[in-house]
């Protein structure tokens, strides 16, 4: 049994302009100690999902249906005090902007100890000691003195570290990080990510990393879920996602990463924008922007299926993509190619230094991998 199992989560917001379906039948799992990435553009529903896990959705939002099973128990059916027990204690969350996440009128140390004192049976002194140790572990120098400092006396990177310390203070089993480095400089970002990875390893904490930055995902995560318009459109291991993307949206995302020295004069983008969640397109939500879309795509909403077998994998942790190309309903084919220069770690043992090419499926075909063009390294 996985640590976290989300099944068919539906979250809606009842606003003046209409009903926004922020999350539409989302399912995924996270196993113990795993680093799970959630990637997608703004508006895809990533943050809403995270907030739902801790039942922090407030009106006008409502968790309509679905189950969130954490260690076997459905979080959505817990009482107020039970869920409060889970928050901070077993599942912790860190947010994008550390500065606003910290209360400006209390010391940083106090805010960390608060969590400890609340969830664990520590005395004040014990809680303080633990907090100081945590501050030290996240890499804040002179932790003992800094304990009594206020949030505005910390730099941006330090603030985020403090927030991480706060989140890890009660040894949670799952840490949800919502765009933890988006607001930071690139150099600081690298350090924070590294810290996050180390701490996750050390404390054996699973991490759900939410971001729109593909580079961060590649750096940190084991498995990834790509979200679009409130649904999961692809789930894969990080290697598979990058080297063998199956869903056109993922392909588009990969293609839109700018590269130095490429031949094209313009940056490639995915045309159009994320649809208005009040008024989703019929059928596959992505079809208006998909170069391979056909009529069928506007009619039927594709389930999340295994690209090889076509079987529904929505509720499992298996590889899946939500495209009609894999259910066999697509007349044409997904006409893209993924060219990999240099090493492909998946192909270790097949001789390094070869150029490899993998091509997208042509309706009904199995993937082909051509090897050895005898290229240079």
């Amino acid at each position: 049994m996985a640590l976290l199992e989300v099944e068919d989560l539906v979250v809606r917001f009842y606003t003046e302009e209409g009903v926004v379906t922020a999350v539409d039948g989302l399912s995924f799992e996270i196993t113990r100690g795993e680093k799970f990435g959630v990637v997608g553009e703004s508006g895809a529903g990533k943050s809403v999902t995270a907030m739902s896990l801790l039942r922090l959705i407030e009106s006008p939002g409502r968790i309509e249906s679905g189950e969130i099973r954490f260690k076997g128990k459905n979080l959505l059916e817990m009482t107020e005090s039970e869920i409060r027990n889970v928050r901070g204690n077993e599942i912790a969350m860190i947010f994008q902007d550390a500065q606003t996440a910290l209360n400006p009128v209390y010391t940083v140390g106090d805010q960390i100890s608060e969590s400890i004192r609340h969830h664990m049976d520590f005395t004040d002194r014990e809680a303080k000691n633990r907090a100081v140790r945590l501050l030290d572990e996240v890499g804040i120098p002179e932790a003992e003195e800094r304990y009594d400092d206020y949030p505005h006396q910390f730099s941006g990177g330090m603030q985020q570290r403090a927030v991480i310390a706060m989140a890890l203070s009660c040894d949670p089993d799952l840490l949800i990080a919502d765009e933890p480095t988006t607001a930071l400089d690139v150099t600081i970002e690298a350090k924070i990510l590294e810290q996050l990875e180390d701490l996750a390893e050390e404390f054996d904490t699973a991490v759900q990393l939410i971001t729109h930055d593909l580079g961060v995902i590649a750096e940190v995560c084991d498995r990834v879920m790509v979200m679009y318009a409130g649904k999961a459109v692809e789930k894969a291991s990080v290697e598979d996602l990058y080297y063998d993307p199956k869903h056109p949206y993922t392909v588009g995302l990969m293609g839109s990463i700018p590269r130095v020295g490429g031949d094209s004069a313009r940056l490639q983008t995915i045309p159009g924008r994320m649809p208005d969640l009040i008024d989703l397109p019929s059928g596959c939500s992505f079809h208006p922007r998909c170069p391979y879309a056909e009529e069928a795509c506007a009619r039927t909403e594709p389930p999340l299926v295994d690209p090889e077998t076509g079987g529904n994998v929505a509720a499992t942790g298996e590889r899946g993509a939500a495209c009609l190309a894999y259910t066999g309903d697509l007349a044409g084919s997904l006409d893209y190619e993924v060219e990999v220069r240099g090493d492909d770690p998946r192909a270790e043992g097949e001789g390094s230094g070869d150029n490899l090419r993998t091509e997208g499926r042509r309706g009904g075909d199995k993937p082909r991998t051509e090897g050895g063009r005898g290229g240079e390294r």
Partner: protein
Amino acid sequence: MSTERGRITIEGFDPEVVRERETPTQEPAGATDVAVESRWARAWRRFRRNRSAMVGLVIVAFMATVAVFAMPISLTLSTIGIILSLAVALGLSVLSRFRRRASTLLKAGIYGSAALALLLAVARYYPGLTGPSLTVQPIQLAPYDPETLLWIDDPSMERDMSPREAGLFDHPFGTDSEGRDMFSRVIAGSRWSVSIGFVVVTIASIIGVAWGGIAGYYGSLVDEVMMRIVDVVFAFPALLLALVIVFQLGGGYFQLVAAFVIPGWAIYARLIRGEVLKTKEMEFVTAARALGARDRSVIFRHIVPNSITPVVVQASLNVGTVVIGVAALGFLGIGFEAGTPEWGHMLTNVRESLIRGPGASINWWQTFFPGAAIFTFVMAMNLVGDGINDALDAQEDIEPIGGGG
């Protein structure tokens, strides 16, 4: 995990296919639609949906109408001329805001009408040229003249008659201690309160916004000096200052206006200065200046419209404060001639009779109706103000989280 990852290139994902497709793709998430509807239109929509605010608006509109039609209005020709030319000048200036460059005709119109207004005003006072009086508004809603002592013509009418005694249909509010019809007095009284409220707030906000806008924009010494002056005004209790001013200037409409404008402009100065300080640092201002816009243009075209929200809210809430203030002066018997049908002033007699202690008869109708009139108007105005606050405020509210991922 290998740290040496391959470099990935995607080929074959062609966005052109999508762009050239004939099937109308989904409009980008309402981007064009939202931009078209102006901030004010949206605010008005929100306001309309606010029930209590709409009720307030209806009441205010109703009372304003009553104020206009309570008694006939006669104006001299010169006054009419002044008002008309000022209105034309104002209207043209507002129009010029909507056009990029004011044409010479427009400018001539503005300055011409303003000059005409000035000319007429001067002519009025020096040679005393006013022209004949015209009855601009002939309707009289008040059944009796508010000043007439009823018992002079009609011996059956006495002083202090309750509504029941005087006849509910003839005198629904009874008569006061001088024998005048309360209903007419209350209706006529609306003129004082309603008009002074709006006039004071308009003038005070214009002065205050200009003052605070300049202070906030130029900063440093200018700001310091100007805001110290604001602090000085703030140091006085408002009613106290009003009392002193009326004490000096005597009673009368414009004297009362001055009495409340002088303490009143300060809050707007402070508000707008705060907003200007915030807005000044925002990027679009830097952009405008980088494009070479003149200071005055930057202030009025960019900063003020964005900072105006709290001023509008404050102004609408302030109307009520001024009305109560004027009524307080009336209640204290200061600034009005005895017998003026002003709501607060109508309560003066009640105070005197109450001091006599238990045993004095209470003319509840003399206390109740004028006070209720004040309360109703101020309450309605405050509901409107609150409605404006909510309508403009929630603009900044976040989009449903769908917009933020």
